[in-house]
């Protein structure tokens, strides 16, 4: 008999508490991000720097070393490099990436010496056909980039290379860590973070 009553009491109290939990959600903010249109910022802009979205190639700084093509485990990068007989320059005649097949693993951008091939924070690429998902970066053959010993000075390329190197620097380097993580960097970007963390202590 006591088990009988106990069951009833248990049910009632536990359901009561569960209902209180769910009811409290009426007073909490929904967590939804209203994606396409009702957002304070574009999703792309809110994504972290390391986000592995669609691949992009800055042909200006691609050395044509094929490291990325070799690194890709599933061959979804196709690069054709021709040697220009006259100028002794390498010509990039084809740089295609199959975004439909790519697994966004980032293995290709890791060995890239200049950060030419890199993941963007772009992810919107739905389409009605697969063919349109091949990104063909080389429209007209371009010369490959040759790193200069003295450092880059072409003002058109400097910012691109800087971006590329910043990307490369994100990857962990075995011998010397790129830079010790700046503890104070976070509040600079997001002032809310530190304060909220302090507040968040129960």
């Amino acid at each position: 008999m006591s088990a009988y009553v106990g069951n009833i009491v248990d049910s009632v109290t536990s359901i009561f508490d569960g209902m209180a939990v769910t009811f409290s959600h009426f007073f909490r903010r929904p967590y939804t991000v209203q994606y396409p249109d009702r957002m304070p910022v574009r999703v792309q802009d809110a994504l972290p720097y390391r986000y592995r979205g669609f691949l992009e190639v800055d042909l200006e700084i691609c050395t044509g070393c094929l490291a990325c093509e070799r690194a890709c485990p599933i061959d979804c990068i196709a690069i054709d490099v021709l040697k220009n007989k006259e100028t002794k320059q390498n010509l990039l005649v084809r740089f295609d990436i199959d975004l439909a097949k790519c697994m966004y693993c980032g293995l290709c951008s890791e060995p890239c010496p200049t950060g030419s091939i890199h993941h963007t924070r772009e992810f919107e690429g739905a389409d009605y056909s697969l063919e349109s998902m091949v990104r063909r970066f080389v429209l007209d053959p371009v010369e490959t980039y040759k790193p200069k010993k003295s450092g880059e000075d072409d003002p058109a390329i400097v910012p691109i290379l800087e971006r590329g190197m910043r990307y490369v620097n994100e990857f962990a380097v075995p011998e010397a860590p790129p830079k010790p993580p700046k503890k104070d960097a976070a509040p600079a970007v997001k002032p809310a973070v530190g304060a909220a963390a302090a507040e968040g202590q129960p």
Partner: protein
Amino acid sequence: MSLELEFDDGREVFATEEMTLNMGPQHPSTHGVLRFIIRADGEVMRSAKADVGYLHRSIEKIAEKVGWHGFMPYTDRVDYVAAMTTNQAWAIAAEALGGVTVPRRGEYCRVIAAELGRICSHLLAAGAMGMDIGAITPFTHAVRERELINDLLEELCGARLTFNYMRIGGVAWDLPPGFDAKVLRFLNHFEPYVDELDDLLSNNKIYIERLANVAVVSRERAIAYCLVGPNLRASGVRYDIRKHLPYSVYPEFDFEVPIGTGRHGSVGDCWDRYIVRLDEMRQSARILRQALEGLPEGPVIAKVPRNYKPAAGEVHVHVETPRGDQSWYVVADGTEYPYRVHIRTGSFAAMSIIEELSRGLMVADLVALIASFDIVAPEVDR
């Protein structure tokens, strides 16, 4: 198919006819593509035979084709719910064969990532458990918490699910600036959430009634069927690879290994399996706090040639994934490609016991049973 006994004179004795039901491969509660061929007498099952392989993606064979580095993203797909630990297992195996030592900071990064992944996975398991029992809200709440972890991991490695974070020799990216503060903030939020989940779901009488005493796995059966991880611990075996066969830097952390106690029924029932996971989330949070505190400085990855060619040898690696001891058997023959990779996963073992456990359960219990084992289809099929 009917089960009919016959009288001597050929007349048949009444028996309710047996119904053969197919649950899956497309079924809301089979957690991916599993199929159960249920022979049921009304609501009570005579047996539920599992038919797996609907997600057999030949990952083991691919390993022989893509090389040591290139296989890393595939390990993400072995157990996509907690890719970090599988990453880690592969990294450990390859490192062992190639004699690479991971820098301490790298190990810490791995632990942080892996424990976040473990919480992520257990959240899904607990939520899915609720959903299969019919409570959808805990599931969405769990998904919400997962999103927070996904955000963290995304910041760490750029992907939400298929992390490909670890590399042979360490990890690919150091912790981003301010990451530890964010993790702490998350933990401060998360630990009360687990308590809330208790109030919402675990202590609910209906929920307990649905799970307690259902599909009890005894200690001996669990071991004989090679159940691992939370499923094994729920049966009362205190065994956790992180503690008892330690790898990485786990010995430096202080944490407990929760086991099933049979609080509402017998040891090893569905409810125990559920609550063990909840407790493990708390322990993971504990490890995370310690790891963030003791995070050493230094590089996160060792120097490993791009053309990685470990010498011939074979290795058995055990890693505690959220679904338990994942046992890797890796054979190297001195080339750039692994010679053989075999993964015995937690879900695989759990899946094989279901047929035996299902006898005499009800159809609804089967759903609870699958959920309580936290079976992830590709882990079974690879």
